[in-house]
Structure formats: structure tokens, C-alpha cells
């Protein structure tokens, strides 16, 4: 390590020593030893990967950090009544015991879906939600699965009825969002929703719930949408609490900053070698950058498909269209800041063929219990993921839209083991157990 690097590493320790002991009375301690001789540039890279910063604010949801809203959202998240047959809640696929995934390759709600359930750990650190970024806020994301026939398959009309008809839920709702517009919400069928995708909105081929939606008055539709959106904003407030940082890697970085040998030992020599691989030869950090180990954007890494052959899922190509057209995006009428930075972001979104087959970079924090991996759950464990990037065996569509920098890493057995050890050291502190199940009725907080 150069003199500049040593001074940079020691600066905080020197300042602390100076503050505690008076000027120039003690000699600076030598820089703490690491198992791997990291270069200055490597140290700079490592420092940018920790700690996990505070959550980015969500000005599109003025209730994003309201504890009462979060409690309501938690109750809704675990409520199976918000599904067509009463058997599926958000937690069915986002199972807290499985890293807020479900252990399946493809999600199974009311039907089998087309993608693997992404984790919710640290989800509020993402600017785009889901694999294809079809939502630009947590609250927008929470709405679509409720009416997706493959997921919960119910309707916003039924959701409103559940909340309005449950004294605890309704009381909690009104404590956060104010009184429901009861006059506009009564005298209507339960199951009402707008058409989805290519569904007919009118005529005999339109689903009954869609025809019923069309028969409602504007004030009724607006009142239902208000409650629907509020439910999404409450669930977003809950999901913002699903944060786990303070992994062994974070303590290691603290040790580098503070010149604390004990903290540096939090990362085993094997994991330190894996870290050097991560930011060096393997260059995983190119996409898995920043303290959440994701650039938050979309890439096509030529992954093998579950069905074999070439990819058919358009990924971000579709997701960008969906979010731009949705009335629930950050620029829409339900946003609490329709002219802010998030609104600008979605208004600027470009519809481009180069986004075809791209999927969002997943965070690598808290991989435990999240297998299988990738957007179709193609890889059964993290070792299989590393093996793919080592050899690119089964890669699809090379030379089309895929990342042009993707090359086989040709990792040795030891290098793969080291990389795995580093990834295992990204497992954060345990979350508050109170967040991992439905809250008790008394906890709804009125």
C-alpha cells in the first residue's frame, strides 16, 4: 500500500487520537493487517460498498415512514383475504422464513407465474421495483399483484370491502388516511376492477368485474382507487422496514476505516480473497455496485432459460412501457409528489429495443435462504451462479442484446470457494422478529 493509501486509511484514527490525547503526543499505529494486500484503488472501491446508507426518502408516498401506516401495511401483507380464493397473501410468495422469497423457481400464487419471486430485503433501496422495473415505487409495486390472476387474483373492489368491513383494519386505515368515503363506496358489486393488459374493457368478452367497473360512477371509481392506493402506500411503509445491513463485511470495512484489527478479522481470509475477486478478476462489482450491491438498473447477462433455448421474456422492454403508462407511477395523480425527481425519472424513460431481455441487478446482501437465484430461479444455489459466470455454460443469445463485457471468468476451484465465502459474509444482522409475521390486532396501533 502506498503512503497516500496508508495516510488515507489512518486519517480517522489519527483524528481520533488527536482529539483524545492532545497534539502529537502519540505515534500513529501502523495500518491494520489484512489477509489480502489490497491496493489503494481496491481500498477505495471497498469503502464505497459499506455501510448501507439510510433509506432514500420516497416523497411520492407521504406515509412512507409513518409507523402506523407500516403496521397497517404489515397486516395487509399477511392477509389472505386479499386474494381470489382467500388462500394467498403477499407473504405466500414473499415468505419471511425464506428471505422473503418462496424457494420455488417460479412464483406460485393463484397460478404459476413466469418469474422467480424477488426478495424484499433492502427493497426500498431500489429505484425500480420487480425484475423488469414495472413499478417506480414500492407502493405502486404493491398494487399490481393484488389483481394479477397469477398472483392474488382479486380485485381492488374486494380489497376495499375487506378493509372497510374489518373494524380493526378500518380503524387503522382511518387513523392514517382519514375517513373513508363511505357514500361513494357502498351500493356496488364487490368485485370491480379495470381491464388489465389486453383484456376487453366492454362487451361480452370483458370479464364481469371489468364490466362492473365500467358501470360505476366516476366518484365511486375514484373512491375505490383512493383506498387501493392507500393500501399500497401502507404496504410500502411496511416493506421499507425490511432492511438488513451490518454484515461481517460491514464490520470489516469499519475496521479498515478505524484501523481496528479485531473488526477486520470479521472477514475471514477466504472471504477477503473473495472480496479481492469480487472487485478484481471477477469484476462482479461492475453491476453489483454500491452499498446495496446493485446498480439498480437492468442487464441481459445471457442466462440460460428454464424452458431451454432462447429467452422469450422481454424483461425491461415491457417493464418500461408498463411503468410509463400506469396511472400509479410517480408522475401520476396518486403520487404525493408528481413533479419531483421520481416523476422526472419515469417521464424520461425511453422505450428502447436494447432493453429487451434485461432484468434488474439483484442485491447480493442477505442471500441466505433466497435460493434459487435469477429471474427464473435458473440456478439452484449460489455455487451454480458462480459456476455460470465462470464458464458461461448454456449462455443464450450471445451477440444479440446481451452485455458485451460478459466473458467467461475461468475461476479456479479455490477462487469459486473464496467468492462464495465473501458472498456469505454479506448476510446482515437479523431483523426484528416482530416484522416477520402478521401483527396482532392490538398492535395495529390505534
Amino acid at each position, binding site marked *: 500500500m502506498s503512503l*497516500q493509501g496508508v495516510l*488515507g486509511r489512518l486519517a480517522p484514527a489519527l483524528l481520533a487520537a488527536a482529539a483524545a490525547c492532545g497534539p502529537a503526543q502519540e505515534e500513529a499505529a501502523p495500518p491494520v493487517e489484512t489477509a489480502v494486500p489490497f491496493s489503494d*484503488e481496491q481500498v*477505495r*472501491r471497498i*469503502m*464505497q460498498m459499506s455501510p448501507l446508507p439510510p433509506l432514500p426518502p420516497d416523497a411520492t408516498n407521504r406515509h412512507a415512514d409513518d409507523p402506523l401506516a407500516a403496521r397497517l401495511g404489515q397486516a395487509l401483507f399477511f392477509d389472505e383475504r386479499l386474494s381470489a380464493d382467500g388462500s394467498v397473501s403477499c407473504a405466500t410468495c414473499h415468505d419471511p422464513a425464506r428471505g422473503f422469497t418462496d424457494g420455488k423457481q417460479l412464483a406460485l400464487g393463484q397460478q404459476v407465474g413466469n418469474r422467480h419471486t424477488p426478495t424484499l430485503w433492502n427493497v426500498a433501496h431500489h429505484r425500480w421495483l420487480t425484475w423488469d422495473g414495472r413499478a417506480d415505487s414500492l407502493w405502486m409495486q404493491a398494487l399490481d399483484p393484488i389483481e394479477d390472476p397469477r398472483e392474488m387474483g382479486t380485485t381492488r373492489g374486494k380489497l376495499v370491502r375487506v378493509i372497510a368491513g374489518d373494524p380493526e383494519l378500518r380503524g387503522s386505515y382511518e387513523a392514517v388516511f382519514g375517513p373513508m368515503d363511505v357514500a361513494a363506496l357502498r351500493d356496488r358489486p364487490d368485485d370491480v376492477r379495470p381491464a388489465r393488459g389486453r383484456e376487453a374493457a366492454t362487451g361480452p368478452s370483458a370479464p364481469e368485474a371489468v364490466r362492473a367497473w365500467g358501470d360505476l360512477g366516476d366518484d365511486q371509481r375514484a373512491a375505490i382507487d383512493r383506498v387501493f392506493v392507500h393500501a399500497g402506500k401502507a404496504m410500502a411503509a411496511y416493506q421499507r422496514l425490511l432492511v438488513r445491513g451490518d454484515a461481517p463485511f460491514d464490520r470489516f470495512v469499519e475496521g479498515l476505516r478505524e484501523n481496528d484489527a479485531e473488526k477486520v478479522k470479521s472477514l475471514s481470509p477466504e472471504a477477503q480473497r473473495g472480496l479481492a475477486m469480487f472487485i478484481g478478476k471477477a469484476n462482479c462489482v*461492475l*453491476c453489483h*455496485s*454500491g452499498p446495496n450491491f446493485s*446498480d*439498480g*438498473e*437492468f442487464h441481459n447477462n445471457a442466462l440460460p432459460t428454464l424452458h431451454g433455448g432462447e429467452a422469450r421474456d422481454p424483461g*425491461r422492454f415491457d417493464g*418500461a412501457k408498463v411503468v410509463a403508462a400506469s396511472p400509479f407511477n410517480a408522475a401520476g395523480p396518486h403520487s404525493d409528489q408528481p413533479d419531483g*425527481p421520481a416523476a*422526472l*425519472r419515469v417521464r*424520461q*424513460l*425511453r422505450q*428502447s429495443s*436494447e*432493453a429487451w431481455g434485461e432484468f434488474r441487478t439483484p442485491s447480493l446482501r442477505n442471500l441466505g435462504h433466497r435460493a434459487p437465484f435469477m429471474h427464473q430461479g435458473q440456478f439452484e444455489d449460489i455455487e451454480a451462479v458462480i459456476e455460470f459466470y465462470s464458464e458461461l455454460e448454456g449462455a443464450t443469445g450471445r451477440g444479440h442484446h446481451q*452485455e*458485451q*463485457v460478459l466473458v467467461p471468468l475461468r475461476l479456479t476451484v479455490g477462487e469459486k470457494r473464496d467468492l462464495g465465502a465473501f458472498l456469505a459474509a454479506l448476510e446482515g444482522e437479523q431483523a426484528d422478529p416482530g416484522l416477520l409475521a402478521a401483527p396482532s390486532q392490538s398492535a395495529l396501533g390505534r
Partner: protein
Amino acid sequence: MRNSLVTMLALSALGCGSGEVPAAGDAGVTERISAGSAPAEETRGETLEARSSGGAFLARVTPLVDPIPMNEAFSVSLTLTDPETGTPFTDYDEVSIDARMPAHKHGMLRDVGLTPQDDGSMRADGLLLHMYGHWEFHVDIRKGARFERAQISVRLQY
């Protein structure tokens, strides 16, 4: 600031009109030390300039933040001038600015609009460079069927 380097290479324009094959031009190289962490607000970065492929205009791009932050939205100021006279260049129907990453063959996937400013410059908000490495600002104008580009390289390093 010492934690990272942003090396900016102002390259001359690459041909892109009338089906020409782009050709790299000479480069005026500026290197400076900056950080990849939180940017200082209201601090303008170094102005980068490049002449367009057909030589019709000189593009000057000034980041309105210094350093350009990694994976965070930022704004730039853009001016177009006649390379010979230095007067404002306005002989176009459309103008746009984009940022691309040649090694990855992808870019921002954002259409950042340009807003005219009182001083004759234009401002673009919402640019975002989400990966470390070599990026290029593309300043394109269209006049009828003719396209012309000025291209400016930016290296975003740790």
C-alpha cells in the same frame, strides 16, 4: 477529493451523418481528482467540449455538479456555438443529449430533455451514469435529413 478519479477525455466528434463510419478524432485530455461519493451542490464541473462530426458546431458540456456522482441523477449545461465565429449555433431543427457506454453497448435509457436558459445555454436534468467505466456524451442535432454529432468521453472511476 481523493476517493476516486474522474478522468475526462474530450474527444473530437465522430462522424455519424449521411451513413459515414465514425472515426475517432484527436483528444484534449483533462484529468482531475474527484470523489464518487456525495457531490457538492452548486459546484460546476469542468467544461468539456468537442467539435461535431461535420464541423458545423462546437458543443460545450458542463456538469452542474462536481464530481459527477456514480449512479445518481445530475444535470448539465450545454452550449452550441459556431466553431469559427464563436457565435451561438442555432441552425438545427432538433437537438438532444445522451450518454452511452460503448463497451456495454447500452446507455441511460432516459430521454433527458433540454430546456433553454436565459443566457442562451440549454440545461438537461436527470442524466445518470449507473456504472463505473467509460461513458460518452452524445450531442446530436438534426437539420432536415442531416444529422451531426459531437461526442465527449467521460471516464467514471472509483
